[in-house]
């Protein structure tokens, strides 16, 4: 696949492991590329990544551009910006997608700035469509859809005049599609030239705590919001989660209030989840929160405000004070189970 105008995904690797969000984006890129009648390319920078690069082809990828150099083993802004902008100039993709991770949000804007193209952060949906601008019709361009202004609105952003069109997307927002084992693709490796002027960041220490919160894999999530009113009441929500063997979730407001660690946050800027059951306690249901949980199979909403937006997407609603509802829920569960 030597043609221009493909859909490209920046493949993030952390200590040699491919980030989940990059694979999710390859799946979305395949869908967009099929709609556009073009190919899917991955851009992977690192050191000793040949085997990993080959494995990625099974996701329906036509070409992995592997850029190798020892200085690319760990992410640093200057070398990564250099190799990615060089690659984009050479390959001329029409779309480039990045995971909205710490790395993707560090790198994407630098590339956009260097290439003087647009970049839309934290898209919750990507579509292809037409756009008319000053009497000129742009066909098959990328609709970059995201909540804005504190979630009070949903904006559709386009950048029709500049290529590539670029967007970042959070982990978990795009769904994995089945692998395509017979798919034919190639890995094209180049050795990067990285001058000393690009080696300005020195990594002194890297500490990663093992993930103790597993929202993505949870079958049941009990989630609390600002409606809890206090840390004490929030602990009641945690108690329900414990009783049901569920993972504890939270809205951003509850995290900001300091009642629970950020690792528990569900929503546009937290984790996107699709559990079998989602119990929202004292969560009003802002668009950012709903973006992260609306696809749960069943949603139970507990809120004192009968007009809270959460009730409009819930399957079961209980209007009431969680201080009464939760103990009753736990009692009923313990009596039966």
């Amino acid at each position: 696949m030597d043609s221009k105008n493909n859909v490209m995904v920046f493949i993030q690797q952390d200590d040699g492991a491919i980030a989940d969000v990059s694979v999710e984006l390859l799946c979305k890129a395949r869908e967009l590329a099929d709609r556009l009648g073009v190919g899917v390319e991955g851009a992977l920078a690192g050191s000793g990544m040949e085997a990993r690069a080959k494995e990625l082809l099974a996701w329906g990828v036509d070409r992995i551009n592997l850029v190798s150099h020892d200085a690319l083993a760990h992410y640093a802004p200057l070398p990564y910006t250099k190799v990615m902008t060089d690659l984009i100039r050479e390959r001329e993709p029409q779309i480039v997608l990045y995971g909205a991770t710490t790395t993707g949000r560090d790198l994407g804007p630098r590339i956009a700035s260097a290439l003087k193209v647009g970049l839309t952060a934290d898209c919750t949906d990507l579509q292809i469509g037409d756009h008319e601008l000053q009497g000129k019709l742009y066909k098959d361009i990328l609709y970059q859809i995201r909540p804005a202004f504190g979630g009070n609105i949903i904006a559709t952003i386009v950048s029709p005049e500049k290529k590539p069109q670029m967007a970042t997307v959070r982990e978990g927002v795009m769904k994995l599609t089945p692998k395509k084992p017979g798919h034919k693709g190639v890995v094209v490796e180049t050795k990067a030239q990285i001058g000393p002027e690009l080696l300005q960041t020195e990594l002194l220490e890297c500490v990663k705590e093992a993930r103790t919160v597993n929202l993505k894999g949870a079958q049941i999530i009990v989630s609390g919001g600002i409606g809890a009113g206090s840390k004490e009441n929030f602990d009641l929500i945690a108690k329900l989660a414990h009783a049901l063997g569920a993972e504890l979730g939270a809205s951003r407001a509850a995290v900001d209030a300091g009642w629970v660690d950020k690792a528990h946050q569900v929503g546009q800027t937290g984790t996107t989840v699709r559990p079998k059951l989602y119990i929202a306690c004292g969560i009003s249901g802002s668009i950012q929160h709903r973006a992260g949980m609306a696809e749960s199979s069943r949603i139970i909403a507990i809120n004192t405000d009968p007009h809270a937006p959460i009730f409009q997407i819930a399957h079961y609603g209980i209007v009431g004070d969680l201080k009464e509802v939760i103990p009753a829920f736990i009692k009923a569960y313990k009596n039966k189970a």
Partner: protein
Amino acid sequence: MSLNIVVLVKQVPDTKNVTGKAMKDDGTVNRAALPAIFNPEDLHALEAALTVKDRNPGTRVNVITMGPPSAAQVLKESLYRGADFVALISDRKFAGADTLATSYALKCAIEKIGGVDLVFCGRQAIDGDTAQVGPQTAEKLGMNQVTCVSAFGAETNAVDAKKRTITARRSIEGGYEVVRTKMPALLTFTDEGFSPRPPSARRVMAYKNAVAAATNDASYDECYMNASACKDDEIIVLWDIASIKADPESCGLAGSPTKVKKIDSVVLTAQDIRMIDNTEEGIARLVHELIADHTIG
């Protein structure tokens, strides 16, 4: 070692405390319903700069903001906390700027100041949450960057005068990194590490009547001297598109590759909801149902 620091700040609508209707009936944002505040993470960036100044006497903290005349309020608040120089970058031609056009204008202003060792800003602004302007500005300045900084490095002084480096701790998924970079560099700050100092009563008295001076094309040094010597409260320097020598084609709507195709007020997909009685019996019936269909249990 004395350093020259620029802090980028933004006045934002307080999206977390919407009073009244956020949207007007015509679908545009009702700014009147949103109180304007100092973007929270920018306040932490200012605190970080003032911390560097405390530890490195002679350091100059310049604070700049781009926005309408009313944005001068965040510059006043910066003066109250210890800023040495404040400039408002304001011009009708900046209207409609996306993050790329914004970063271009900020780059022009930072270059006008000149001889800058460090640029500090918040990781993101609460009205857009994009986290793009910091890195985009760093790229245009040809500077390295450290994003999501939550604290300075373990050393008592993060700044190494001889080697011209700064050490910072940045938040990453599930942990943190400590990195050292050469200066000049741009750092973006989260709200985790630095507790912004309160305004100083003495400085509030001194600057409470501060207003923007008339636009002028004088050099940064002249602006600095004039603002320092000013006796009639015109301490806020006003720069327009010409003062920072910005190309109009790269500013505002003209310099913005991203366009808003449409804005939708949030409409929820209504679905059938079963309301459960808030009684022990009602809740028990729901729990039994969920157990019976293996949703829980």
